[in-house]
């Protein structure tokens, strides 16, 4: 008998060894070694208690996706995080509210072509190398030479960049611009010590943690993909060492897991896009949790294929049909169901949060399916066979392919859109699909209707850029395929208009044109909802619409 039991135990141990053997070794190996954090001097700016050793103040952030890569040259995700490790010449402290960054001040010549920046002295990168005007010039030139795809396009008018002395940077433009501060807010200043000498291919392949070296308030010390990321305070930061010593980003499988973790106290902050609107009421009911609701530049829209060579049916190009579709979309329902009220129905593409850039004269098309049906009827789209779906003059039924992301919330929105269209006699059953497949539709403009959204840049230039003809090339931003010569002319003009009021008028005109041509039907302007534990931290700035944004985070401190 004992033999049998031993045999059983032997089986199990063999199985376990088999499992261990499959790995080759034991626990997970870290991808790369972090640069050794140097022991800087004790932070002097914030008053410290007199104790000899202090527990580091740690802020734990929960999210469903940390980022795609440490490499800023190819990384598109989580600009909030990048803003904490890198600096830029100018920083954003609120929607379209800019403050000095590495540049203390700046002036421009009368012709608008020569900008002179006064650079802050004494700044160092996390690896100790200096960051003077010469180093900044090197970084900007490196960006342009290597056409760094994530932010070189902001510099497309920069003809010459040179450092006049260690604290003066001079930029000569090929054409004047009206939004210089905005152009600079995303151009990370990167260290020569890391990036010099790399070939373009090497730049794209660089995955070492050193890619995170910048001059920002935090140093990237650790990243385990899919699990966590750790930032340590930079004691030499030029604004002074931050009050929070350490930030840990933690990845969870679902949004609800993040919310649960926050309620349970496992994390201190739930990152911006990690809170489902259905959880807001629960969070607000918790007395230890603060739920700031802030303006954002996020919009979502229904994209109507506007490419002249796209695969959409001819009927979709008819302005009457587009207008009818606009009447058939119940934006308030979308706000209620998808956003639980934390959004507002949209009109033009520039959201209200962008202040006077938003064209408030344009009246949105209300939800009125009867009117939509009437428009179609008059335009000759009648339902001749009584199946509830209208046909065009050639007898082709109005059946459109309606695509969108396959997560829960977008699916709900697709249903609302589809139902609305059915009410005016258009058949567009929802066809949710995964993100990669959606992206795959664009190069050939092979779709009719797509539901998607944007997190727009704080300057209206970007919102307009996505409708320009050039951006229709592969890798460009133009997802609707829209290309109109009149619009192109207006875009070019606003790009070089320095006078703000003149530019504003142009932007308004462009919004009106887009509204009437309808490559997009903009659905909502969403709010950003975050949540944090007010029993642990306080003092977050709310203006940028993200409490983890650099300017918002630097004012935060632990609750004593």
């Amino acid at each position, binding site marked *: 008998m004992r033999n049998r039991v031993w045999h059983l135990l032997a089986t199990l141990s063999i199985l376990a060894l088999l499992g261990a053997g499959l790995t080759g070794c034991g626990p997970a190996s870290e991808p790369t070694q972090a640069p050794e954090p140097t022991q800087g001097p004790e932070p002097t700016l914030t008053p410290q208690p007199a104790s000899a050793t202090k527990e580091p103040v740690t802020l734990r952030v929960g999210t469903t996706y940390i980022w795609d890569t440490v490499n800023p040259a190819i990384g598109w995700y989580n600009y909030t995080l990048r803003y904490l490790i890198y600096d830029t010449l100018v920083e954003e402290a609120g929607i379209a509210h800019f403050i000095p960054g590495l540049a203390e001040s700046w002036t421009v010549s009368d012709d608008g072509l020569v900008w002179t920046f006064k650079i802050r002295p004494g700044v160092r990168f996390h690896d100790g190398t200096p960051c003077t005007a010469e180093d900044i010039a090197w970084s900007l030139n490196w960006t342009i030479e290597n056409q760094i795809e994530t932010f070189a396009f902001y510099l497309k008018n920069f003809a010459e960049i040179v450092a006049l002395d260690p604290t003066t940077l001079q930029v000569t433009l090929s054409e004047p611009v009206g939004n210089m501060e905005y152009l600079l807010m995303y151009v990370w200043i990167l260290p020569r010590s890391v990036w010099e000498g790399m070939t373009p291919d090497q730049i794209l392949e660089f995955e070492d943690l050193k890619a995170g070296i910048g001059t920002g308030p935090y140093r990237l010390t650790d990243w385990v993909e899919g699990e966590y990321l750790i930032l340590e305070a930079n004691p030499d930061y030029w604004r002074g060492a931050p009050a929070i010593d350490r930030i840990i980003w933690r990845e969870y499988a679902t*949004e609800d897991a993040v919310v*649960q973790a926050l*309620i349970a106290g496992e994390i201190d902050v739930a990152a911006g896009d990690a809170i489902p609107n*259905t959880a807001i009421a629960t969070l607000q009911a918790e007395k230890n949790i603060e739920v700031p609701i802030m303006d954002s530049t996020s919009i979502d829209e229904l994209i109507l294929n506007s490419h002249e060579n796209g695969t959409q049916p001819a009927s979709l190009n008819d302005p009457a049909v587009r207008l009818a579709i606009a009447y058939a979309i119940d934006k308030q329902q979308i706000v209620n169901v998808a956003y639980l009220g934390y959004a507002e129905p949209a009109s033009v593409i520039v959201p209200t949060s962008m202040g006077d850039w938003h064209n408030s004269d344009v009246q949105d098309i209300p939800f009125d399916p009867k009117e939509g049906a009437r428009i179609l009827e008059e335009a000759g789209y009648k339902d001749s066979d009584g199946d509830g779906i209208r046909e065009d003059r050639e007898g082709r039924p109005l059946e459109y392919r309606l695509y969108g992301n396959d997560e829960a*919330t977008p*699916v709900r929105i697709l*249903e609302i859109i589809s139902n609305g269209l059915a009410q005016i006699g258009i058949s567009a059953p929802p066809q949710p699909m995964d993100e990669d497949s959606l992206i795959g539709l664009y190069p050939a403009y092979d779709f009719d209707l797509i539901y998607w959204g944007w997190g727009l840049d704080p300057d209206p230039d970007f919102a307009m850029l996505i409708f320009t003809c050039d951006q229709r090339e592969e890798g460009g931003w133009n997802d609707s395929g829209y290309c109109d010569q009149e619009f192109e002319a207006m875009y070019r003009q606003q790009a070089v208009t320095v006078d703000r009021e003149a530019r504003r008028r142009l932007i308004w005109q462009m919004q009106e044109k887009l509204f009437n041509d309808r490559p997009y039907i903009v659905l909502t302007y969403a709010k950003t909802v975050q949540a944090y534990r007010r029993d642990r931290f306080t003092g977050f700035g709310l203006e940028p619409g993200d409490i983890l944004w650099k300017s918002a985070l630097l004012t935060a401190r632990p609750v004593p």
Partner: protein
Amino acid sequence: MAAISKFVRNPMGVIGTGMLLVVVCVALLAPELAPYDPQARLQVTPADILAPPDAQHLLGRDDAGRDVLSQLLYGARVSLIVGFTASFMSMIIGTTVGLVAGYFGGRVGNALMRVVDFLMVIPDLPLMLVIIAVMGRGLLNIILVIGLLGWTYTARLVRSQVLTVRERQYVLRARAIGASHMHIIWHHIFPQVLPLVIAQAVLDISVAILEESSLAFLGLGDPTLISWGTMLNFAFERAISAQAWWFLLPPGFAIVWVSLSLILIGNTLDQIVNPRLRSHHLFDARRMVNIQNSG
């Protein structure tokens, strides 16, 4: 018949049948029973989203403001359809393969059984995930995937039974007088095989329903179709932190109810059909190993 009276006398069988009948009735009568039409267009306010149960909505409302109870009732349809269709497919394929392999034997038989062994060894859910990832999602694909992977037990079972029956006196006599293969299979072998197949099919239905719900939960179902699995998918993504237990729990328990009913029925059938083996033959490893050894 003796079998039916034995079944009726077994409390597990009776309870299981009762439970199953409830579900079937619900599925058939959903339009009459459901207080609301789950596909109807609604005008909802934010307060309606994930609203807790009240007099108008006995199980509250889901994340789109729709009545959970109605969805639960209609969801029975998809779950039952998937379960029955997929296992019917498995039954047909498995029986055919088992009959051919067992009756004709030889190289064809061996080759077929190798395929069976191969499919049995591969882990089910990963294989389904991989196939669906490539083929695309949707109800039809799920049914196909479950049906095409679930026939192996039946095949093994049928084959081993056929091997036994094949050597019986009346079969040998039939062959001696020149009866055709089809005749023998249909008149002598098949009737012996059928009870086992049915017992196994009932269990296969419960497995199919569980697998459909897992696949739907993992996001591979058709999100525009109401099934208990997709309800749980939406619930897991949007309802947990709102603590909307009325949306989370009912679909899961509905799945358990149906599975359990089928298991009870299947268990009972099995006891009747296989009186000598008082074990649950879905789980009888010794029997599986014996089958393996004789193969």
